């Protein structure tokens, strides 16, 4: 194995200089690779091992934890392991979904980082053969007010650019961005979280697998050319190459949504109309060519021979290492039946795209790379994939937990002027309307969107059926920070509550596990415990984990982000008649509180507002009880008894009641904004202290019911394990009046709405 490029270190030099350390490969891992190979890996090979054994590609520290998730169920057609998970939704159709993080790229280059995040997750969906039909974005940033942030201008810049990147890519490619969440906490300063979820629809007969099967079949490369984009971190530091010139450095990945649009159409054309000559298809994501190709071979138990000279290149003098690790966007890898390459090329050409053969499938199980007439790598495929290391890293109970629990959650909380507190909460960026953001997302293209952003869950109808899909993303990192296990349960319960409030049965979840460094035993504890919480809740709500993503090392020199396992959940609405939004519909409707409020202040927005920090022990949640509530509420919705439903989350019941009133639209009643609309009010009475108006008790709902349905509604709840308390009614007063045992709240709906609606734009200006 001689003849690699002169500028590259020899195998001995790789060993002696330990250059692999700069690729985050440990000495032990290098030794392991040497032992497996029975010789020293050359420079290219060492690079392949390093990247394929990186956390990003092989999940070596999280795999043992992911194995604890429930992943199967009667409707699951594809669990974790492929590009995305798939769930049966009846009528021969299935929903395909997955979420992915693009945190680090977005921190460095927010516009392109976020844009390429959208591009990447879309490829995961259409590589399964599905048409992407919706995108959701879950975002976390540092604080937006100068007194809480180290660099408030930079935080604002990040919000602006990330949102612009998502809208530019999603709008251009024509997949509606229908929902998401946006929260602000100082721990995300310097390390924002940008998680994107994509949902696709597929006819079950079209489901694809990313396999490179059948010796002799061709491996074809399609889409954009390869440049030195996004090759991992320090690799090209000048010492290693001794050249250090600009062009040798890894470049920022730039998204090309137009190219991807053509790629979607061309790939779906091949899948739907030429499936007889397509063996497998896979997107090129992290670690581009090496990762996609080895995975395809591994799944089929085959080998591959790739001729790198044939890889379409955008830059000159690219080395095998650079080509294999490049993360240039908008590229796919196809395995095509031998002899049918030209047909494939012709199809792609008709979409203005190049498709070239870069190699073929072999039966020797080897991963062989040729460049300039020389073999530059020769490694058994499974060494890079199946045989990647797996670590059971130590865990340790985080010291913060004991400290946080010495104080009572109620400490520092005192609501002496509930009206003022209420308005301050409405203005806090985490609670305030996110319209300023989603207004820039095309949420309606593809004409399936029934419920746009602004309600608990977004709803997409499924054409040619009576059904629809509800979708949401959720996670309150503060709860996980205070108690990883209970927080994990809450994340799933909250997502399920959003799905149920829109009239849907929860089907399954995807996740993005955003944590700090796994080498920190406390982080591993958070990860393990929150995963246990997620699993428990998923079992109760019967929502298996069908796909997901792990993002570790989310920390700056100062602190790790809150452990933030973002949950993306999809639910099935059996009939579009059952779709419900959070907006009140008509004066006179009775208002109910479902479930009962508890003094849940630990991690609440109220606690943060009044004490500037979060602390205390969050109380455990009764998963079975919440499930019973969900079932009863869904039964009521399906009987047509419910005019609106909104789960209580950040800001508590007062905010939930207000949001229901704000959403009213006299024209459509669909919750979309119309400032000219007549405004509704609510008149409610709660036999509670003022503080409880802002308690965040998960699994409680504010529901409005037409008077004609009240009797049947109450009967349903009386016959169940759930409780519904009539607390008042919707009225025409234009006032939000919430009486309590204390002072209560009485403000004009219009003025409260103005605060809530304009706050975010104001903070960002």
């Amino acid at each position, binding site marked *: 194995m001689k003849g690699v490029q002169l500028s590259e270190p020899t195998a001995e030099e790789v060993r002696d200089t330990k250059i692999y350390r700069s690729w985050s490969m440990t000495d032990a891992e290098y030794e392991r690779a040497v032992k497996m190979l029975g010789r020293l890996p050359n420079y290219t090979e060492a690079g392949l091992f390093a990247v394929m054994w990186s956390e990003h590609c092989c999940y070596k520290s999280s795999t043992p934890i992911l194995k604890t998730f429930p992943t199967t169920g009667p409707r699951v057609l594809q669990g974790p392991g492929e590009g995305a998970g798939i769930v049966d939704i009846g009528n021969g159709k299935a929903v395909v979904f997955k979420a992915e993080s693009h945190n680090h790229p977005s921190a460095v280059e927010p516009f392109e980082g976020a844009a390429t995040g959208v591009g990447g997750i879309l490829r995961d969906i259409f590589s399964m053969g599905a048409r992407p039909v919706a995108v959701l974005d879950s975002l976390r940033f540092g604080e937006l007010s100068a007194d809480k942030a180290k660099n408030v201008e930079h935080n604002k810049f990040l919000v602006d650019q990330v949102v612009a990147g998502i*809208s*530019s890519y999603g*709008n*251009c*490619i*024509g997949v509606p961005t229908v929902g998401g969440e946006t929260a602000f906490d100082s721990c995300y300063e310097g390390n924002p979280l940008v998680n994107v979820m994509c949902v696709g629809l597929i006819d079950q007969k079209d489901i694809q697998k990313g396999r490179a099967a059948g010796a002799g079949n061709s491996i074809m490369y399609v889409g954009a050319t390869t440049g030195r984009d996004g090759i991992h971190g320090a690799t090209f530091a000048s010492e290693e190459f001794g050249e250090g010139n600009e062009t040798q450095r890894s470049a920022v990945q730039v998204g*090309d*949504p*137009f*190219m991807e*649009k*053509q790629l979607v159409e061309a790939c779906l054309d091949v899948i739907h109309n030429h499936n007889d000559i397509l063996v497998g298809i896979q997107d090129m994501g992290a670690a581009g060519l090496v990762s996609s190709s080895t995975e395809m071979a591994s799944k089929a138990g085959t080998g591959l021979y790739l001729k790198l000279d044939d890889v379409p290149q955008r830059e000159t003098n690219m080395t095998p290492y650079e080509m294999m690790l490049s993360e240039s966007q908008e590229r796919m890898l196809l395995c095509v039946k031998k002899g049918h390459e030209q047909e494939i090329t012709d199809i792609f050409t008709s*979409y*203005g795209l190049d498709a070239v053969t870069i190699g073929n499938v072999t039966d020797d199980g080897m991963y062989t790379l040729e460049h300039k007439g020389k073999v530059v790598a020769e490694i058994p495929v499974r060494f890079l994939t199946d045989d990647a290391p797996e670590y059971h890293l130590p865990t340790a109970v985080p010291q913060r937990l004991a400290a946080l629990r010495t104080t009572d959650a109620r400490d520092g909380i005192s609501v002496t002027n509930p009206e003022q507190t209420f308005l301050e909460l409405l203005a806090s960026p985490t609670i305030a309307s996110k319209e300023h953001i*989603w*207004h*820039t*997302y*095309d*949420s*309606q*293209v*593809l*004409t*399936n*969107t*029934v419920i746009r952003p602004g309600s608990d869950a977004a709803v997409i*109808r499924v*054409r040619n059926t009576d059904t629809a899909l509800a979708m949401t993303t959720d996670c309150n990192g503060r709860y996980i920070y205070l108690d990883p296990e209970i927080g994990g349960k809450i994340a799933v319960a909250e997502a399920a509550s959003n799905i149920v409030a829109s009239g849907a049965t929860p089907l399954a979840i995807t996740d993005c596990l955003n944590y700090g460094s796994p080498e920190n035993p406390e982080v591993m504890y958070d990860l393990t415990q929150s995963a246990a919480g997620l699993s428990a809740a998923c079992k109760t709500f019967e929502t298996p984990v069908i796909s997901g993503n792990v993002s570790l090392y989310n920390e700056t020199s100062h602190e790790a982000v809150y452990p933030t396992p973002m949950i993306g959940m999809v639910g099935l609405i059996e009939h*579009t008649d059952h779709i419900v939004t959070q907006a009140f519909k008509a004066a006179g409707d009775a208002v109910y509180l479902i479930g009962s409020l508890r003094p849940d202040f630990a991690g609440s927005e109220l606690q943060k507002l009044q004490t500037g920090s979060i602390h205390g022990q969050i109380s455990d949640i009764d998963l079975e009880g919440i499930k019973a509530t969900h079932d009863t509420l869904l039964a009521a919705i399906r009987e047509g008894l419910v005019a609106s439903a909104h789960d209580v989350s950040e800001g508590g019941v007062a905010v939930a009641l207000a949001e229901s009133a704000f959403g009213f639209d006299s*024209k*459509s009643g*669909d919750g*979309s*904004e*119309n400032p000219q609309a007549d405004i509704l009010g609510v008149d409610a009475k709660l036999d509670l202290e003022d503080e409880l108006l802002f308690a965040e008790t998960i699994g409680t709902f504010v529901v409005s019911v037409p008077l004609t349905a009240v009797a049947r509604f109450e009967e349903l709840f009386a016959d169940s394990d759930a409780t519904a308390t009539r607390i008042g009614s919707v009225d025409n007063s234009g006032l939000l009046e919430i009486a309590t045992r204390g002072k209560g709240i009485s403000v004009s709906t219009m003025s409260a709405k103005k605060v809530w609606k304009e706050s975010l734009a104001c903070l960002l200006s």
Partner: protein
Amino acid sequence: MSAPRFAVIVFPGSNCDKDLLWAIQTVVGVDAEFVRHDATSLKGFDAAMLPGGFSYGDYLRCGAIARFSPVMEEVHRFADEGKPVFGTCNGFQILCEAGLLPGALLKNTSLRFVCETAEVEVANNETRFTSHYEKDQRLRIPVAHAEGRYTVTDEELEELTANHQIAFRYAKGHNPNGSVDDIAGVTNKAGNVLGMMPHPERAVEALLGSADGLPFFSSLIASMTA
């Protein structure tokens, strides 16, 4: 004339093409077919419909590259022959770039993409596209664009007004993009070419929030079968 047939033109990067086809074919129930950008004939079609989207990524100016597609020669011929030609959003931008409609569509004054249900008024209900509306009827029709600020010179505006070429306006106080004179849609002088930023094809089903776009399609079909 027999039942009309619609051509929905697909440019590379069009992304509302399927929506337009669905609206015409499935919701309204009239014959419609996709026609590729590189087609050289529109034989057998009675109307050319240019969908929204981002043709060629809108990478130079919106619609600037698409207007050189081979099929546009046929669209020009259609327009000259007095057959109906329609463009929404990117389709409108392409028609302006192609010179089939006056003016240009520039970046919204907010500099941001705007997606909302616009309040639109029928400024002229005597076109073949709007005859099933009342004059000044208020409609709710979605818009979704970053470059929808309709711009013409003062003289051109006078001419447009004098010739009753302004078909739709945004309701007072509801202009989402800074268009001159609140213009949302214009026709050519002959009245057979219409471009508009709002998406009537997104307003054909009450389930999705509005059916105010239906009379648009029925007007057009009536004008073709009359």
